[in-house]
């Protein structure tokens, strides 16, 4: 009697293979690849500490971020121009302090873009301030 169960085992393989394929298809469809993330470091001085005034000297680079675009050392520039300005400045020194001032209504994407450009030219002395 027990022997009889082993008689046509070939027929039992088919559902097993079906299950394997179903499983494989299910997981291939549901699995989604994650983006690769990066991090951009910056300093945030304590509010109302007056460090903004203290740190502001001629050697520092000032970048203002508004709702429309960026202002580099008092002149409105495009992101492309900002890139070339920073490239030029980084050639002499990458140690200079970059002061980034953001308007309250400016999109966060602009700030990330500026930080990314600074990172591109190895300028890591970044401080972020906010304007009301």
């Amino acid at each position, binding site marked *: 009697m027990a022997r009889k169960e082993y008689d046509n085992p070939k027929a039992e393989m088919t559902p097993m293979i079906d299950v394997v394929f179903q499983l494989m298809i299910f997981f291939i469809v549901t699995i989604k*690849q994650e983006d690769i993330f990066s*991090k951009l470091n910056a300093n945030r001085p304590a509010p109302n500490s007056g460090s903004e005034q203290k740190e502001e000297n001629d050697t520092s680079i000032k970048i203002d971020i508004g709702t429309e675009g960026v202002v580099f050392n008092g002149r409105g520039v495009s992101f492309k121009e900002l890139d070339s300005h920073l490239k030029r400045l980084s050639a002499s020194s990458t140690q200079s302090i970059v002061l980034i001032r953001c308007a309250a209504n*400016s999109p966060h*994407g602009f700030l990330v873009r500026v930080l990314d450009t600074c990172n591109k030219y190895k300028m890591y002395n970044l401080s972020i301030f906010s304007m009301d």
Partner: protein
Amino acid sequence: MKKPKNEDVSLDMTPMIDVVFQLIIFFVVTLKMSDDKDTTIKLADGKNGIVLTQEELPPSQLTIDVSRSGRVSLCNITLTDKMLEQKIKERKARYGAEFPCMIRADKNTRHRDVARVMNICAACGVWKLSFVAIQEHKSKQ
């Protein structure tokens, strides 16, 4: 001659079952079902930043999500400013002020909302902040 051949085939089931279990275990382990972050956030591009790997994310790290509308959350749990302050203070007490504090903000979030989070961090003595960006797009959207 034909019968014994069929009898041998039944032994072939064992590796098959092994493979199925291996597959199931592999996918169960690799698949992350729960979303421990705000999935509505669309990050900005940051090709030149430091690539985030598992080693860059020690248990001491804190990732603060700021959605487009300004919702501040940790592990997809919305926090008030006071609760966030408490969380940061807890981290600082345990790991010191140097723990990796990361802000995941949508590219269209107003700076005002990000500044609010940064001010809370700075007020707690955490000045070194990181912003999360996308190094390379892999998921199709």
